[in-house]
């Protein structure tokens, strides 16, 4: 599903150029659950942003679903993103002015889904995330775990092929964290590809494969024992 080859990303200031991603290559197959780990500043988030079509690489190739997307302009990237990719963040990033229902409904609005279908799909996903009873509440009225469940609901409401999760349990206690990881596992089991950036070895164990990075490069790649064939 995803194939990156010799991917590069630099950050430049007036005098200094920092290499964020340095000739990175790997592949993620459809239905896989991959964790990306590494110390702060190793390039994990940059990688996630490029994979999520939020940022453009400075070099190398990025093939998404068989299409070379490196070099796509913002409009093309946005279009591809809204139909194929869902995001889950550490800090939930819900829109405070919108209710739970409206937050989850938003991606469907942007992809032009009709109101009746929107309502049905939002209800369906909220039921699935066990947050239906909170649909009229606003994010500030929810606990961290509930907010992250809403964020996951929003990420999956469009049935994306890929979910990118950036430390999804970073702001949660262990029990809420486990619930979120269970949710992601269920989604993966249902066929959604997941790439997760995490510092947590515990969370990484939910995935099939762990890519470890340092200074913008891949240092190791472990397939967890139970998934080795």
């Amino acid at each position, binding site marked *: 599903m995803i194939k990156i080859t010799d991917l590069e990303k630099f950050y430049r200031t007036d005098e200094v150029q920092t290499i964020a991603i340095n000739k990175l290559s790997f592949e993620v197959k459809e239905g896989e659950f991959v964790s990306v780990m590494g110390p702060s500043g190793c390039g994990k988030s940059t990688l996630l942003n490029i994979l999520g079509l939020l*940022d453009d690489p400075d070099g190398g190739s990025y093939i998404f679903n068989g299409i070379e997307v490196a070099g796509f302009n913002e409009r093309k990237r946005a279009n591809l993103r*809204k139909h194929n990719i869902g995001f889950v963040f550490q800090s939930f*990033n819900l829109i405070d002015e919108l209710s739970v229902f409206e937050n989850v409904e938003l991606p469907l609005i942007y992809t032009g889904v009709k109101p009746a279908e929107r309502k049905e799909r939002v209800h369906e996903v909220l039921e699935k995330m066990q947050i239906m009873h909170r649909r009229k509440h606003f994010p500030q009225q929810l606990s961290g775990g509930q907010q992250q469940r809403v964020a996951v609901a929003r990420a999956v409401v469009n049935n994306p092929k890929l979910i990118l999760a950036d430390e999804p349990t970073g702001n949660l206690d262990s029990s809420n964290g486990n619930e979120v990881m269970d949710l992601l596992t269920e989604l993966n089991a249902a066929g959604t590809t997941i790439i997760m950036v995490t510092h947590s070895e515990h969370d990484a164990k939910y995935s099939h494969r762990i890519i470890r990075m340092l200074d913008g490069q891949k240092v190791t790649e472990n397939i967890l024992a139970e998934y080795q064939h």
Partner: protein
Amino acid sequence: MFKIHLKSAWRNLWKSKFYNGLSLLGLSLGLCVAIFIAVWIKAELNYNKIGDSSHIYRVSSILSSGENSQTWGSSVGPVAYYAKTEIPEVENATRIMDFNGYRIFSTSSNKFEARGGAFIDPEFFNVFNLKFIDGNSSAPFSGNNSVIITKKAALKYFGTIEAMGKTIAADYKDNFTVTGIIEDIPKNSSLDYELFFPMLIFSENYDGTGYWKSMNSDWGNFNFVTYLKLQKDASEEKVIQKLTKIQQAKDPNAHLSGEKDSYYLQPIQQMNLYSYGGDPTRIKTVRIFGIVLVLILSIACINYVNLNTARSIQRAKEVSLRKLIGADRSQLFIQFIIESCIFFLLAIVLAMGLIYLLAPYFNQVAGKDIHFNFLEPELWGMIGVVFVSTLVASSIYPAVLLSSFKPLEAIKGNVITGVGAGTFRKVLVCLQFSFSVILIISTIIIGKQLDFITSKNPGYDRSQVLNFYMSSKMRSHKEAIVNQVENLPNIAGVSFSNSNIVNNGMTTGDTNWDGKDPQSDFIVHPIGINKDFIPMMKMQLLAGENFKGRAEDSLHFILNETAVKQAGIKNPIGKSFELWDTKGIITGVVKDFNFTSMKNQIQPAVMYYDPDPYRMYIKTTDGDISASMVAIEEIWNTYNPGFPFNYSFLDKQYETMYRDDIRTGKLFKIFSILAIFVSCLGLFGLSTYTAQLKKREIGIRKVLGASVAQITTLLSKDFLKLIAISCIIAIPVGWYLMQFWLQNFAYKTNLDWWVFAGAGILTLFIALLTISSQAIKAAITNPVKSLRTE
């Protein structure tokens, strides 16, 4: 999608109550003032919009030429007559003349001061296409005792519009029967009369025995306002040429003196905005108000743009999230435009509330009678134009800026608000305060000019002088009246003139003196006075002596300085002078005095002795004159029973002459205060926001030892720099605008440097007060608190 945009917009508005409240208040005030000004301008531009008035012109008479040329809005009787009968381009013509001479109009049950009456030719109704409710428009008058009244007058005099055949009595003796009722004429017009009498009454004054045999051959008396309705494709120039040719051929004096009189046809819709000769007068004020409208709206819009873009960082996260979950830029752009629409709708609703509340006050200050009928499509059209232009001007930039955030940076808090967004905001603040300073400068100069003309010595003492017109009946008891008045307490003097000294409109070219150039275009204002007038009015005699009240005074003339100068008479005392048919000598020269508005240069005046002038002037002393006023009224009632005591003080008459200018001054004062208030609202919002943004920096600086003064300076100096730049920009613009406005006046105040410096310092001071409150508040906050909350 629209619904969710609405919800989101509403919640966003509610979330930032403080900043949005500031913006909303500024915008509503701006919109309210802009709509008031737009309505005011529209009323000025809609003057004389009566039926199809686009081909109707007033005939202005241009007397003589060169330096002494004068243009009058009145014309002689033959103009209308010959225009209609001999000029094919003229479709119709009518004359109108104030119906003076009566004091009271009464019916069997009501009596009113005789006002609002006019003599007209019967063609009047056709020229202006006035609709008859009752009566016959082609033969409106049945004879000399006939009157046509408006619907309003019918209600006023008879309490019903069923007034045909009823009688109105003038001064209890002359009866006029109502033979027609017409629809009301708009107040905003030169035809704002309510009773129309046949011109025939006036024309019968010509009985063939006088110098002028008939009204239609009287080329000497400019008694009428003449209106010509031209054919649709007619050339005004051609009509003027033909009128001039007719005057040269028919006017016997034109042959004698070779006078070069001419005409100007003024479109009637321009009568209030341009002089009789077509020079711009009030239109200048209208243009300046147009500029003020744009300035005030800009100030309000800038507040909105600045507060919105400055706080864009708070929206950055939301924008980024929306982008992440699929919104493209156009969707976000539309969202922000919808938010602006909601905000502006709210502002316009508030503005309309303000208009509703303030309309009576506005009408009072502006001297208008504008009804704000919110069911009127025209008002909505105007509100719509103001609304849409303001919305477009102030919503696009914030929407572009907000929708342009790069989601990654924004979500991490590294908002880059587009290249130069901060600079753009600074430019807007500069513009905003430049506009405010311009308005402050204008207010000070207008106030200074009004002070100048109202306090300038006009060459006579107008304080505590009341005057009134004496009917012939009263004049027959003049000596008794004077004796009684002089014996009242607090009366300093009594005198007479046949002219209104404050605003004398009478002129004549019928003068002569030894050595007068036959081609001379000398036009003079004749003022008939008695012997007490000059001393009582404290006019200064420069040479010769005053009238003595003897029979020989009837052959004596007192000229003003300008008359002597323009006539070119050297050593005038004792020299011969002729006015009308009276040949006499000059016995005095009086210092120049303003007997018309200070908008005009002082013109030549000749004072002649009139033993029986009809206007009585009474000067009172400083004490309480209420008892004397009651006594004067009693004297009036004794000698003029049944007529209301109709008097006025010269001071008031003088003020009335500058009424429009005083109103303009008042409106400017209000606009300036509002402009600076709205600007300061924006500045307050920005400074509050800056203080919030720099909370952490302030905390660190304080921990490192910065004083309150240093922190206050840190937060204020950038804003104050901007205000200083605004002053530098505004001063030359304000100077130019006021120079332009002062061209309306022949006598004008100086554009002193201190006005400009004062306006700048005042603005800086107000801005400093606005900013420093927030700066000081931030500076005295405990740094531990600000660092912790950060």
